[in-house]
């Protein structure tokens, strides 16, 4: 296994892959100076969601990270789309109904129908 090669260096192999099940809890999303760039959602929570799927055996660390980042992009996208509806109503506060409208209007959000109640 790849782990053998890393073990030679003496540094603990924190990475992913086969360690999916046994891995220690992920630290907070990479909080380097450019934390805003990488991910703000805690990887541990995303991982919990991923593992909730009975068909999923393991997920690599990179996969979790990308899912977290994708979820952020998704939140931005749906917030903006919902805001368009609110704007039309000349409101400055996003309401639940704006979200419902966006879900109905945008094809990509079809998977959300019926899931938010």
């Amino acid at each position: 296994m790849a782990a053998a090669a890393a073990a030679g260096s003496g540094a603990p192999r924190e990475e992913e892959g086969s360690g999916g099940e046994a891995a220690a809890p992920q630290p907070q999303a990479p909080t380097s100076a450019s934390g805003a760039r990488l991910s703000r959602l805690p990887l541990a929570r995303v991982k919990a969601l991923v593992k909730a799927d009975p068909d999923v055996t393991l997920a690599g660390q990179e996969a979790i990270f990308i899912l977290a980042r994708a979820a952020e992009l998704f939140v931005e996208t749906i917030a903006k789309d919902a805001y368009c509806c609110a704007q039309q109503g000349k409101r400055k506060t996003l309401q639940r109904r704006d979200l419902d409208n966006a879900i109905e209007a945008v094809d990509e959000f079809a998977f959300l129908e019926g899931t938010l109640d």
Partner: protein
Amino acid sequence: MAERPEDLNLPNAVITRIIKEALPDGVNISKEARSAISRAASVFVLYATSCANNFAMKGKRKTLNASDVLSAMEEMEFQRFVTPLKEALEAYRREQKGKKEASEQKKKDKDRKTDSEEQDKSRDEEIDEDEERLEEEEQNEEEEVDN
């Protein structure tokens, strides 16, 4: 404790921050709307995971990897996410690599506290070796678990 997967919510504070930064200044969001978005994000992750898992299974792998997730995005018609995600992935990989090198470097510095010049030279050589090794590891990671 969470009864269903959909109940596993992402932290409200983070969700709120992401929403606020996506919207113009002065725009607010009702509690219900925010909570619905948070829930939607969880559903999104679950759905994306399921899609990604299909790709992994097609590839006869048991571990979800980054490209499975990217394929899932396209499948879900979120192609517009693919490019920013790829960039984020690159940055993430660089950071992981940097962290690893930094911690290995620290360890070496610790070991070498006594000697100086000669050690410095050999340290440079070793860094190169480590980089090679890291590259190998990365390749191994990608080919990865098919055990």
